[in-house]
């Protein structure tokens, strides 16, 4: 982190737009996250939330608009290896599917070591080994799991590995792209607790992409609600969830099943005429 840019938000996007042919996937999306803050991007399929994540990580190039991480622009593709690696130290991502986000042929410790070699070329093998052990322990895995192949690990354990690998670069921003959505409830709680602890410990910034309002509430301070490519509501997470203003947010909120859920109400919404 450069001293000069310390007052810049960890991540700031403005006027972001993405079209695929004639289809507008993302339209005029702007938001900022303070350093150490956490932002939820809520939406359903087709809302454009995943496309926003892809533009932030550089998998897609924005049609218009700017993206800045720690005050540095990343709207255009990186020029050269040094800039690519620097961007890697600014923003990392953890994906949804724990089964395909690790190289099936690479043991956990080697996967983390590879990232360390990339970002810490000056470190010796011994220094890296110490750090690997530290990272593996930090995400709650033991030594044996730390040297296992992904196929020997459960979904929750693999997601911990993905988190450790992302943290190895010591990024300023961690994007959690539905990172707990595919996990069993009891495992999801463990990983959410881990993420909460890590944020406190590392003062890292989270951007959580999710359709799950309860997960968003647990993990984020601020939220933007996306619908059909555009931001329809934004604010402090508790305000937006407790008193949603936009009709879509209200609908989203009312769709979360709870005991005493009024299915008759849902039915009326289905057939307004009857």
């Amino acid at each position, binding site marked *: 982190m450069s001293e000069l840019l310390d007052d810049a938000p960890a991540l700031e996007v403005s006027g972001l737009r993405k079209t695929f042919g004639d289809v507008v996937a993302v339209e005029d999306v702007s938001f900022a996250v303070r350093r150490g803050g956490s932002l939820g991007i809520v939406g359903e399929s087709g809302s454009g939330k995943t496309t926003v994540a892809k533009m932030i*990580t*550089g*998998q897609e190039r924005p049609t218009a608009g700017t993206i800045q991480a720690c005050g540095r622009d990343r709207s255009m593709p*990186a020029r050269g*290896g040094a800039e*690519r*690696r*620097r*961007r*890697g*130290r600014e*923003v*990392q*991502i953890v*994906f*949804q*599917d724990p*089964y*395909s*986000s*690790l*190289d*099936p*042929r*690479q043991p956990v410790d080697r996967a983390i070591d*590879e*990232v360390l070699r*990339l*970002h810490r070329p000056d470190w010796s093998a011994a220094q890296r080994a110490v750090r690997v052990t530290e990272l593996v322990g930090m995400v709650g895995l033991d030594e044996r799991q730390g040297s296992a192949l992904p*196929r020997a690990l459960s979904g929750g354990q693999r997601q911990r590995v*993905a988190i450790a*690998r*992302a943290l190895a*670069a010591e990024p300023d921003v961690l994007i959690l792209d539905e990172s707990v959505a595919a996990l069993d409830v009891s495992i999801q709680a463990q990983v959410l607790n881990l993420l909460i602890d890590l944020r406190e410990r590392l003062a890292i910034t989270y951007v959580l992409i999710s359709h799950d309002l309860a997960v968003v509430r647990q993990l984020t301070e601020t939220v933007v609600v996306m619908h059909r490519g555009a931001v329809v509501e934004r604010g402090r997470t508790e305000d937006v969830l407790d008193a949603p203003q936009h009709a879509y947010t209200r609908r989203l909120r009312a769709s979360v099943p709870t005991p005493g859920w009024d299915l008759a109400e849902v039915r009326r919404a289905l057939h307004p005429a009857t």
Partner: protein
Amino acid sequence: MSAVAAPAAGAEPARARRRTGLGITGWVAATIVGLATLIAVIGPLVTPYDPNLSDLVSAWIGPGAGHLLGLDVQGRDVLSRLLAGARSSMLGPLLIVVLCMVVGSVLGLASAWRGGMVDTTVSAGLDILFAFPGVLLAALTAAVFGAGLWAAVLALAVAYTPFVARILRSAMLKERHQPYITALEVQGLGAVTICVRHLLPNVFPFMVAQASILFGYAVLDLAVISYLGIGVQPPNPDWGVMISENQSGILLGYPLPALLSGACIVAVVVAMNLLGERLLERAGTEGRR
């Protein structure tokens, strides 16, 4: 009832992990391939007679009297010719497979990784190549460079490349969009490093399987080209050449030399195909999930 049984969507406990053995057929096929390879290496050194030593008086003499498999159209020892012929019959296909796998991988990888214009250009180029059958290309090459093993190898390698490139492109494209590859890109790792260290090793079992099947085809096509007289030139021993030399024997009631060389070709082709299929199955189950 409108639906059929689906793979357990809830990821039930017994995630069927098939053992990665080759099975009996696979092992038999592998043994045949191993034997053929061994003969290709040492065959020419252990021939009981000079494979080119002809004795027209002894033509079409059957097995016996020191000649285990008899003598051919020109009175040459069939066993010696089969042993010596194994080299060009196996080495030719090997070269073809190596050439078209290397070129095919590079093209397929470039297409899969870069997409867009690169993909479009490569695909268009391959489509043009697709139009030329291998044997036709071989005839052209023979006309330009003169007939011989090397011209035939070059022609078939060129003819196979579009198939290889296309099939590898689709396998690599699937791998390229796996989240683990994306995660490495986000880390800042270079494209070449990711491909060499991660993508290629993960499609390698698939490549080996494809190479094995391709080898079978190459043996066959090369034999056809030699049979037609634009490949390996007589009197050099080669299984394809041997069929063509001894085909008159079939009509004369002495089919053994032609049949034996044909049997060698069929054995290798079938074994390679079986082995390739087993390897494909294995590549499909191994390491995944």
